[in-house]
């Protein structure tokens, strides 16, 4: 048998090249999110609008307007046919992507809604609000009442993620709560500092949580033990995002100093400090498959890739 030398394992690439900048013209971009396959992005504007863009071309595809206040978070369904968004106007809106119409408007939160997520089948919308509750909305029935209200948190829910049968919430009371529907258990991890963002790792074994003590922590999901701690960035007052790279190799976090920090997951060392701008990097989203990163700063969304794209240079200038 011929023994070809194995291809050298490529060092994991990082999205360090700015591919394009999208000026969203919707006030501050509160959140930027990839859709499921990473071809489109959603930008939540403070001018009450939600916009859908093509990542590859940077063109505006659709504007969804119907919120009464700034849009704070959005998520797209597994088939990209629906989009849900939440807003400071205390509502969660389910949009039809193609028509841009409001499919349903879910009211019930007592305060602004910070985060929203579909479940895997887009049959439930979960929304976390400043009122300290997570509400589970049924998209299948005609009822406008939530299926269940999770009011275990003692303070505002700042972030929320769904993975299969698990629901991860980060709250300002400094706790990361993981609701396991299959087991019927609630795991509460105490992280002392107000949580700004939580994530599941891609393999579903770890949870990532960033908190206002300028620390991102990687916790083992089952035991709650800390696997890694990532510091260096600045996150002291703003609700900023963090995420894991598509292959769980790196941990990324926004920072208030205008950079995106990127640490090696295992070693915990800072591997990239991506200068985005002068202001606060508010939101980021990692491509589900490729090495591609979205950052939102002020009114712009920037797309970062591993390889520079020459063809897209002209869009940079605009």
């Amino acid at each position, binding site marked *: 048998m011929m023994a070809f030398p194995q291809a050298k394992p490529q060092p994991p690439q990082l999205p360090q090249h700015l591919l394009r900048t999208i000026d969203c013209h919707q006030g*501050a971009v509160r959140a930027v999110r990839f859709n499921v396959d990473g071809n489109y992005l959603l930008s939540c504007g403070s001018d009450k609008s939600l916009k859908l863009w093509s990542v590859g071309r940077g063109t505006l595809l659709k504007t969804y307007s119907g919120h009464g206040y700034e849009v704070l978070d959005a998520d797209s369904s597994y088939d990209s046919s629906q989009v849900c968004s939440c807003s400071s106007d205390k509502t969660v809106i389910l949009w039809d992507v193609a028509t841009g119409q409001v499919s349903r408007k879910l009211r019930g939160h007592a305060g602004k809604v910070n985060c929203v997520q579909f479940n895997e089948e887009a049959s439930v919308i979960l929304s976390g609000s400043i009122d300290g509750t997570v509400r589970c909305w049924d998209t299948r029935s005609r009822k406008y009442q939530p299926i269940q209200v999770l009011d275990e948190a003692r303070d505002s829910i700042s972030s929320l993620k769904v993975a299969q049968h698990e629901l991860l919430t980060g709250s300002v009371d400094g706790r990361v709560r993981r609701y396991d529907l299959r087991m019927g258990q609630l795991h509460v991890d105490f992280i002392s500092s107000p949580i700004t963002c939580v994530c599941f790792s891609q393999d579903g074994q770890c949870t990532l949580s960033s908190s206002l003590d300028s620390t991102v922590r990687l916790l083992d999901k089952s035991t709650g033990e800390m696997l890694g701690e990532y510091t260096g960035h600045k996150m002291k007052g703003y609700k900023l995002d963090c995420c894991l790279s598509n292959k769980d190799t790196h941990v990324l976090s926004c920072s208030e100093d205008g950079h995106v920090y990127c640490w090696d997951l295992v070693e915990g060392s800072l591997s990239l400090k991506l200068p985005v701008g002068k202001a606060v990097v508010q939101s980021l989203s990692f491509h589900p498959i490729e090495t591609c990163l979205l950052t939102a700063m002020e009114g712009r969304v920037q797309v970062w890739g591993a390889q520079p794209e020459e063809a897209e240079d002209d869009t940079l200038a605009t």
Partner: protein
Amino acid sequence: MAAGGDSDEDFVSFGTPLEPLEEDEPLKRPVPLHEQTVKDEKGRYQRFHGAFTGGFSAGYFNTVGSKEGWSPATFVSSRQQKAEKHHARPEDFMDEEDFSEHGIAPREITTSQEFSSSRRDEAAEKARAVSAQAALIPGDTLLEELITPARSSVGIDLLTKMGWKEGQGIGPRLKRKPRRQLKDGGSRKSSYVLPPTGSEESEDEDDEEFAPENVTFAPKDVTPVDFTPRLGVQGLGYRGLDPGRALLGRAADEHVNLFRPQSETRSRLFGERGRSSRRAGVAGQAFGVGALEDEDEDVYHRDSMSRYDTVLGEEEPGDGLYGWTAPEQYTRRRERNKDAAYLGKILEGFTLAQNPLEEKTIFPPPTLPRDYRPVHYFRPKVDVTRLSGVSSALAEALKTSKGHMVPEEPQQGGRHQLDSGQRGALLGEDVLKGPASVLDLLRPDDRQRLLSLRNASAHKPCRSDSQDSSQAPGPGPVLPASGLQQQEALAAWRGSSSSSSSSQSFKPFEKNPSKQARYELYLGGLRQGDTGALEQSLDPSMTEWERSRERDEFVRASILYRPSSSSLSSRFTRGELQEDEDAVEVSRDQEGERDAKQAAVQMKMFGKLTRETLEWHPDRLLCKRFNVPDPYPGSSVVGLPKVKRDKFSVFNFLTVPESRETAAPPQPLEPGKKSRWDVSEQEKEKKDEDPPSQAVSEGEEQSSDKKAEEEEEEEEQRPPMDLFKAIFASSSSEKSSSSSEGESDGEEGDAKEEEGRKEAVKLFSVAASSSSSAVTSSLHSEAAGSSQKSAQDEEEFGPKLPPPLPPAAAAAARGGAAPRYLLPEEEKTSRRSKEKKHKNKKQQKHKKEKKKKKHKKHKHKGKRKKEASGSSSEDSKEDEDDVQPSTDELLRRLKSIRPPQIW
């Protein structure tokens, strides 16, 4: 139909036996209801709808063919091609199920009802044949009999398998004799009569002779009455012209009379049989009299009016056959033994009842007494309580003499709700002189004071009375449930100021002053945190049962009517800096745990120490939506099984449980606590947990304050001083300046040194990145409405959002939709208006600088209070216009800046 009834072994089995049950075979579970589905011919599930169309849906929910409804016909009309008129047929509105076999318009070739297997019913055929004898065309059924379907019904199949043959009756086989007897008896007993079938009678008689002894016969078949429906419009009992009779010449004795068609029958029935000269030939009015006929009187028929009924309801002619309409086949047999008077009244299809109707016996109502008057007389109630002089025995006698108990006064409830004193009062007894009555005489307030004094001095709950110690039970016998409630009541009432609430609180036992007094005594004890208050407040002179009853009532009432402040205060955490009397008392048992957690976090020992795993019940529907089996099937609990009352979320207020009777007026937030965000993280964590006791927190407070100060020094970015200065200088009123000074107290010297160098332009960038820059968003937000309120919200809860737009972007947005970055010059021009306002500030800021320094050191303590006042006044803020900021407006903005020492 057991064929072999002779021996026990010799039996015939019918049908297929069930498979024998295996011993170890698991029992087959019955198919559950939801799996008993019905599918149509294409395999689609059908939904049960009702009895129509086989009980299942037709079309789309029983309406149309498909979900989309009717497919519209496209209308085309042009000069060449005119639209043709469309005639809708009923078939157009039918779907395939209507055309199918069981539909309303079947298109398949099926056996119609005429030829269906039900025609094989021999008995019905027989009946029909009987009726056909008198039909218009004899042998009417011949055609029908020619075509017989091959199918026969299941019942007939079963019967034939069991040995039944057509023409036989159903039942055990009989010997000849009993059969005859049965037949006769049956014919007599049965409600309907077997119609005669001419040959049968003779057959029976013939058989009788030859019947051997050992031969059994099937019972005779029963010929049912053929209920032929009436088709014509004639009245009941009408029979048309009988051509058979006419042609057979049987009507020779009487001409066919259209108007009295039964006359012939009648004559046949009664005594005119002798003239049965049956000759073939045509007879009738039109044919004249034949040569062989005798009668010729009616050759020229003269119809006379006497042959017609001229009067309705005429008397019977006397022969008892007036109005006779019964068919002859029903009556011919019976005429022998039946009263002929009935025959005339039996209609076709009706038979004479064999058994007379049972006569309903109506019993006469009871006879009333002669002196009965239908007026109810109410006895006058004798008020026993008024008759204080009479003895108890007399009073009792008076009471019972009325025959029933006088219902007690409604406010006192039942007899058992009265205590002994009240019962005594009811009975007119003198009030016993005793210690209890002395207490009752006191005013509640006095009594309360007395008791509180006594509680303060003597800790023993026992009374001075010697008998009291024997009677009054200690806290031991109290039921555990009520003991829990007592704890709750204690927690609710403890610490509430006694003077105010005693006058305001709800009086549940107002109707019973002594009881109310005892209740208030109990409440007074509760307020002082006396656990023995309940026992002390009870009347020792009461019986054990009454006391226990009252104990329960008091505890319940005290929980139910707990002071509103406690229900509110349970939702607030205690301010850590101000030691208030109004603070909530919360158990400290979790204190240690919290500290351990905090320590674990600081030591980065995440894991067991920081993890808490609780049982959590997801909603069943949620599980379904997540495609996950319900982890707790059958459990009706949703959420955390043990409801932990969340005291710390302000938003719990929005869902105050309705069960609480006292609608708590919305009280202002506790002073001194602006938000959870205005304390350092260590402090905040303490608040998140159950508030510690005052003693412990004292020490911690200082240390945490120290920590907070350290943090403040580490903090580099904060709102620049010149911003504050600018505002202070402008504000003339003392109140506003003092409040703003309070906020700026946390500032440090180096920040102040910087401020002089700072330019107005820089101010923005610094402010934007600083932690307290929520307000700056409003400064340069082109979406004016969006920022103001969010800034407030953010101040109260959670991490903030970054400012909407940097000055550059804002300027760009203002200047138009320029999709690229502005050059610095453009930026400046577009920002001119803003710079103006900041110059204002700059000018003002220097004025206040010195004054502020002076105040700086002293202000730290009162800081939080002032912040709170600042936050409470935010609500009155109005939307800002960033064109021309006035000083007041700037002040307002400043107030909404979060205190700088937080992050």
